[in-house]
């Protein structure tokens, strides 16, 4: 049954008590903040784990409490938390929840109750994940890829209970994400306000929307893999477990296929990279356009590129498996499809640069982060060209080159966008301004710091330094300079780690002491800046929904009174 406006569908759920307003809230803005705070807190745990890993790598043996088992557990938990529980949850659960209804002109998500349920399931998945630290044997040390058979075989840290909490937590996370993702997709398709055609949506919404669809289609693979591995672990089935000897005994399992798990995992794992990257692409486009006071260059091309990248990312997964022993002919196919993604991605990079070209660039903190993203993303993308080619990838597999590549392209890049986005939308979310000097200091230490950390790692990788090793020991091909580089990286990492304190201090201090923010401090044209109240009240828009007459990028229009025209302004 078609209805003309989401506005007319049914009354909003109105909170009646403190608990339903701030805890069991169905308001997308509260849920967004709950998602973001939870994701950032668990992200800080992962950040601490990375500092501990760096201490061991830079100064081996200096900290006797870090044993080889602990190191592997830190590696595994750091990876999984950062990719799934921080980046995915923050970009989709946090920014998706906050921005989609405001940017498309809706009062809330289409299914507010399911949205609330999504957050609480996410919180449960985080609690189960953290429980892994306290079960006998500690969390899993199988690497974030959790490959069987080693993940559930004696000898791997956390092979008994740590892996179980991880798998259960992932299954819960997938359920939570599915609830959220259904909401994001349906809200974009169904609840746009009058005049908000698909091609008038800001690119942030396009990025989050496409990533949500991808998440809905990719996460079932992780769910299936987790359930099957739980069966293998607890019920003794042989989905993934081959015939093997462990600790001198033949295991009862036989005939299973570890490769099957790898296919399932990477069928999720590769789209996951773009589930994280596409929202970042969208958000960074908006930051660049607003702070350069120019319309985004090639808007249609940007939308199409997002959709094409999303589609292509489902046919490249086995480029993570070049050395897995799969059929070598697959390598040819997957290398080709991988390199084809460079085309739409390059279109996006050129369009960002062309948006900046002759723009009226304001070097505010969000813009600094957006421009920094272009640097790190190009950098990580170029090293991806090396790794996408089978013949180059084989010698570089499982070296620090890989670590440097994926940290640049899907660690640092989205995180820089997240910082930029928080600085950008903070005045709208909390109605306060943050401190500019602290923000700039945070930016420069972080930006230069991540280069100091990850640039040398490329050289370590080319020398053949393996990843996931607790200590390098006496190895003939590893020169003394590697140890020096490792010390340098660790010191840089600790400085960047400490610099994040500036960010947290700035955000929390400004919450109480920051000057009141203007409703539209950056002079942006998109809907979220046009709410009657700042921060937006429950229901977002007052008695009437906004009506949209133009796209979100009317900046510096010749002849216009101001250098931006809001989306709600009728055409002459």
């Amino acid at each position, binding site marked *: *049954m*078609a*209805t*003309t*406006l*989401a506005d007319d*569908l049914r009354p909003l759920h109105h909170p009646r008590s403190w608990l339903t307003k701030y805890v069991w809230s169905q308001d997308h803005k509260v849920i967004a903040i709950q998602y973001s705070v939870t994701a950032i807190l668990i992200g800080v745990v992962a950040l601490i784990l990375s500092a501990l890993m760096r201490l061991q790598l830079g100064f081996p043996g200096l900290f006797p409490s870090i044993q080889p088992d602990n190191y592997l557990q830190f590696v595994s938990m750091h990876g999984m938390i950062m990719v799934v529980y921080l980046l995915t949850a923050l970009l989709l659960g946090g920014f998706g929840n906050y921005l989609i209804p405001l940017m498309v002109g809706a009062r809330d998500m*289409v*299914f507010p109750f399911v949205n609330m349920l999504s957050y609480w399931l996410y919180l449960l998945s985080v609690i189960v994940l953290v429980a892994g630290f306290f079960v006998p044997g500690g969390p899993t040390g199988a690497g974030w890829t959790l490959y069987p058979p080693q993940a559930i075989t004696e000898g791997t840290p956390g092979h008994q209970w740590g892996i179980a909490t991880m798998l259960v937590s992932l299954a819960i996370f997938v359920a939570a994400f*599915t609830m959220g*993702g*259904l*909401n994001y*997709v*349906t809200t974009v*398709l*169904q*609840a746009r306000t*009058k*005049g908000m*055609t*698909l*091609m*008038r949506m800001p690119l942030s919404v396009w990025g989050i929307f496409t990533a949500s*669809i991808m998440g*809905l*289609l990719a996460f*079932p*693979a992780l*769910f*299936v893999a987790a*359930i*099957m591995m739980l*069966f293998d672990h607890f*019920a*003794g*089935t*042989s*989905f993934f477990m081959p015939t093997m000897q462990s600790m001198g005994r033949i295991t*009862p399992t*036989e*005939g*299973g*296929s570890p490769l*099957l798990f790898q*296919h*399932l995992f990477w*069928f999720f794992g590769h789209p996951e990279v773009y589930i994280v990257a596409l929202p970042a692409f969208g958000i960074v486009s908006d930051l660049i356009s607003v702070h350069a006071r120019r*319309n985004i260059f090639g*808007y*249609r091309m940007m*939308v*199409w590129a997002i*959709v094409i990248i999303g589609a292509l990312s489902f046919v490249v997964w086995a480029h993570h498996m070049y050395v897995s022993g799969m059929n070598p002919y697959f390598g040819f196919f997957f290398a080709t499809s991988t390199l084809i993604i460079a085309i739409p991605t390059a279109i996006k990079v050129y369009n960002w640069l062309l948006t900046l070209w002759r723009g009226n660039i304001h070097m505010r903190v969000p813009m600094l982060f957006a421009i920094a993203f272009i640097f790190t993303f190009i950098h990580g993308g170029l090293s991806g060209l090396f790794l996408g080619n089978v013949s180059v990838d084989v010698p570089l597999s499982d070296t620090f080159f890989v670590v440097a590549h994926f940290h640049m392209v899907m660690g640092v890049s989205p995180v820089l966008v997240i910082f930029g986005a928080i600085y950008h939308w903070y005045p709208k979310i909390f109605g306060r301004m943050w401190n500019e000097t602290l923000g700039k200091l945070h930016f420069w230490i972080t930006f230069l710091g991540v280069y100091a950390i990850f640039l040398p790692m490329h050289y370590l990788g080319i020398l053949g330094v393996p990843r996931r090793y607790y200590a390098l020991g006496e190895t003939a091909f590893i020169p003394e300079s590697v140890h020096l580089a490792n010390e340098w990286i660790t010191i840089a990492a600790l400085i960047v780690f400490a610099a994040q304190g500036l960010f947290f201090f700035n955000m929390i201090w400004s919450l109480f002491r920051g000057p009141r923010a203007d409703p539209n401090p950056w002079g942006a044209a998109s809907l979220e800046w046009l709410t009657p109240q700042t921060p937006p009240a429950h229901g977002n828009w007052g008695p009437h929904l906004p009506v949209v007459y*133009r*796209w979100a*990028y*009317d900046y510096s229009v010749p002849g216009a009174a101001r250098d931006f025209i809001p989306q709600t302004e009728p*055409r002459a």
Partner: protein
Amino acid sequence: MSLFTRLAEKSWEPKSDRDLPPDRPSAGAVGLSAYVAVACVMFSLLVAAYVMRMGLHSAMGHMGSDWVPMPDPPLLWINSAVLVGSSIAWEVARRARAQGRAVRASIAGAALGLCFLIGQWMLWRHYQAAGYYLAANPANAFFYLLTALHGVHIMGGLGAAGWALIGGNIRHIRLCALYWHFLLVIWILLAGLLVST
């Protein structure tokens, strides 16, 4: 208005939306279609894993295969018939114009769905009694996994049906019917796979 026309809109030009009528499908229908897509991906991946695991031994050049197919007891066909009957009842509910008829038909559909679940449970007991344990063979493991996941979806459908019946909303009943048909199609494909291999 095709999707391609919408995606070709030049939104920066004046009057760009002149020819675009509003497109507002019902939220429930969009949400349901999206979920059906998710479930389709999940079951397709399981089927892919099933086929890959089944042919693994011979593909790796081992003698014979460790895959021992399960027998097809009559209960499997009875359960399938019950689910077909359930879907027919839901279809009656979907087409009913009067609310009373829709509610009665959907209660019948849900009751038959419950019978299907009980039948599946009996099927599991039957296989257990015959020695087809979960861990004894990959064919058994896949059977229990697939039927369990399908059963969980049926339970979800029963929950949704209860919610629609309490609310008495005829649009929700129609969505439930569509979801039920989807589960029937999945079951027919899964049962076909289990019987034919």
